């Protein structure tokens, strides 16, 4: 690594003009992250013309990058406060974040999320600075079989989310997988479950499913529950995380950052998988896994660190091999083209000012985001003091108008309302929407990777096991399935070793 170029990069960032653009970028990003629907990619498209008119195109690129990682911070806020995840990678934050908010600890959740995001992103930028090109090569070793194995692992982890009945969780996840197949099959262009509607041709957007099942479902459910009860404002204690919270969250942030950095490099689904894996990892290492889903701070810290680390490491494929890992990176790619730079292997040598300017702006941008978050957390948690009767229609309008803005489609509004009713009914019948949403997100990845693999292997499934990386992941999958079974078998033999009678009884009552 060229150290002087790296330092010059800081020179680029700290020019007042560039700092200002960085600030604008992260603030806009945070705002649209709070708004469901309108994602960072669409916002970057709207603001793309700024690249033409900016005094310095590097400043504009810094701004666009800021929108992207700023949105990751914003998405957490609605997940925790209103149970509407704006991004697929904040779905898992909903479980413990919203539970914490209900207990009056929204401030703690948001504070830890902000700190975790900052640390996750910073660790990831350091990783990008030192290991970027190396990691990019590693990502290339991931072919369709590896993705299939990884996504299979992800779907299995989905079943460990939440505390409800496992069979019901699996059933919900399976229906989520089926929902992901709706639309034109990308291998044969045959229509599946579209019932002749062109609107379903491209499948269902994640935001429609997530905001329907979580957001609208929650609003409808509360309408029934709230009726005839006086409003008791949630006690907003602990605006800022206590030392104990930080101590609990610390290791989770570390693990989440690492998982996020590694998985974020993989194009497509990397960030989702990272947050999911981080959540599952926390639940597994926890002394008492049953706290998860009822307000475990690690359940917020791990995934939030992971998705920000992943968002940052998704810059690696773009900046080192010229491959945009997601729609937002594609917009950044386009912006770089406008500047006259084609992102690719030569970028770091040809335009070190741009490369290090953008990379180093992320150190500064994340610092700005952390400093902004601290006062904003205090403001945002006040939302919970608003009476539910008032909050409900406002939230409903945000989601409905927000969903419309994704594709400018009224059809999506109806689809979201449909999923809202489904989400309400699922609650009534004891099903959790979480596994369904997550399985839906991973569904098309697992199917298309599986089918691509079979085409490459010419129908011989043993290829999955013989390839080193996919074989390793599959061995891990077997371990994930076998471990609880073995543990249970051992526990049956010696009932009093690692668990007290109460917890056994309790677990049984939860089944």
């Amino acid at each position, binding site marked *: 690594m060229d150290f002087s170029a790296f330092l010059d990069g800081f020179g680029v960032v700290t020019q007042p003009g560039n700092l200002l653009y960085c600030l604008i970028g992260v603030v806009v990003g945070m705002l649209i992250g709070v708004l469901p629907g309108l994602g960072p*990619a*669409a916002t*970057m*498209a709207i603001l*793309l*013309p700024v690249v*033409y008119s900016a005094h310095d195109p590097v400043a504009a690129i810094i701004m666009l990058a800021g929108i992207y990682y700023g949105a990751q911070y914003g998405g957490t806020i609605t997940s925790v406060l209103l149970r509407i995840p704006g991004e697929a990678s904040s779905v898992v934050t909903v479980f413990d974040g919203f539970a914490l908010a209900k207990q009056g600890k929204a401030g703690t959740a948001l504070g830890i999320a902000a700190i975790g995001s900052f640390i996750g992103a910073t660790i990831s930028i350091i990783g990008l600075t030192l290991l970027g090109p190396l990691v990019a090569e590693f*990502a*290339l*070793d*991931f*072919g*369709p079989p590896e993705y299939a194995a990884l996504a299979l692992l992800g779907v299995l982890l989905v079943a460990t989310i939440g505390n409800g009945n496992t069979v019901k969780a699996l059933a919900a996840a399976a229906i989520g997988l089926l929902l992901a197949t709706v639309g*034109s*099959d*990308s*291998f*044969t*262009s*045959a*229509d599946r479950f579209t019932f*002749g509607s*062109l*609107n379903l*041709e*491209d499948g269902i957007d994640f935001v429609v499913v997530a905001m329907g099942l979580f957001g609208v479902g929650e609003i409808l459910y509360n309408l029934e529950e709230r009726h005839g009860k006086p409003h008791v404002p949630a006690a907003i204690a602990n605006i800022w995380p206590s030392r104990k919270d930080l101590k609990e969250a610390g290791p989770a942030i570390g693990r989440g950052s690492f998982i996020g950095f590694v998985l974020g490099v993989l*194009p*497509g689904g990397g960030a989702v998988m990272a947050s999911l894996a981080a959540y599952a990892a926390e639940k597994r290492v926890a002394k008492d896994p049953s706290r998860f889903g009822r307000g475990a701070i690690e359940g917020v810290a791990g995934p939030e660190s992971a998705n920000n680390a992943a968002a940052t490491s998704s810059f690696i*494929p773009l900046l080192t*091999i*010229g*491959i*945009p*890992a997601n*729609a937002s990176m*594609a*917009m950044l*790619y*386009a912006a770089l*083209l*406008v500047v*006259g730079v*084609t*992102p*690719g*292997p*030569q970028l770091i040598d040809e335009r070190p000012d741009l490369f290090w300017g953008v990379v180093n702006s992320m150190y500064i941008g994340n610092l700005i985001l952390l400093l902004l978050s601290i006062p904003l957390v205090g403001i945002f948690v006040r939302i919970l003091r608003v009476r539910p009767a008032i909050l409900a229609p406002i939230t409903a309008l945000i989601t409905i108008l927000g969903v419309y803005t994704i*594709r*400018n*489609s009224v059809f999506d509004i109806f689809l979201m309302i449909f999923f809202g009713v489904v989400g309400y009914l699922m609650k009534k019948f004891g099903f959790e929407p979480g596994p369904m949403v997550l399985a839906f997100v991973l569904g098309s990845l697992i199917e*298309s990777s599986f089918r*691509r693999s079979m*085409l*490459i292997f*010419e129908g011989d499934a043993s290829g999955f096991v013989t390839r080193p990386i996919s074989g390793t992941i599959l061995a891990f999958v077997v371990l994930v399935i076998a471990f609880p079974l073995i543990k249970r078998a051992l526990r049956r033999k010696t009932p009093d070793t690692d668990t007290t009678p109460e917890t056994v009884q309790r677990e049984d009552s939860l089944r």
Partner: protein
Amino acid sequence: MRKQTLSLAAVAAGAALALSACGGVQTTAGGGSDSGDYPTGSVNMPVGASAGGSSDLISRQVSRGLSEELGGSFPVINREGANGALAAAEVAKAEPDGSTISVQNASLFAITPLAVPEDQVTSIDDFDVVQGVSRDDYVLVASKGSGFDSIESFQDADGKVTYGTTGVGTGAQLACALTFNVNDTPAEAIPFDGGAPALTALLGDQVDTACLQVGEAIENIRSGKILPIVVFGPERVEFLPDVPTAQESGLDVEVAQYRFMTVPKGTPQDVKDSIAEAMQATFETSEYQDFNEQNNLTPMEISGDEVVTQLEEDKQRYADLVEEYGIDLGDAS
């Protein structure tokens, strides 16, 4: 209480419908035009692709040019889905007064019909084509690990050659499928969701070859990480002067993606003329020319009628080739 709610809703709906009869709803700040001074308000430009794709970028570039030449605003609205069929449907049913215009791509009209069922085919007859825009060439590239460097080297292939495509019903798929069929090489298509994943798989040696748009592949070609074999345009590509065309390599395969400005059928001639003139003026600007160069786009600034002729020709040619070689692009049956 419920009754009250319902009657209120009924009244509200009634009032709303009465209001709509006045025809005041708009998605942007103005309307279309029925006189010469086009445009009177802002003009929607739906594009059938997500933000960041080449169709989207081209639409945005044209929109900038139009608003500079004509005044008013030309907001680009991403209406992705079904390779542009959703955006096309929106344009086709819009008021033919110039308030909705759209840059559309040729593959939707010439190639997609070969891959989708009859009732999903979008016909060019629903539109008036105003002006050609630019061409995006495809290139066949091989990974370094595959050992292929020319069409002839495919003869040494042991087993099936795998090729990544950017999706079903795209020009990339057609170009690759035709190449391997015409060349009589046993091959298997591995469809990916767009150019970036296909390129990733190629760089990682997961597939042997891939058909990509030149702009997607060029940087990795320049750095020598992947090898270009042929391009599929009618002539060599300016950005890859050393790469032969498929025709030069003895394969009768010519596939290109091009884009053109469309308006709903029946739009007044003066509106179409205004748009065409403004676009031609845009093409002259250095900013627009730089844009083409950066995105590896070849100008194809022909008249609307020529575009239609070319489209009809290509459609027939592709259909004949696909039939001749028994290629199955998708589920057209």
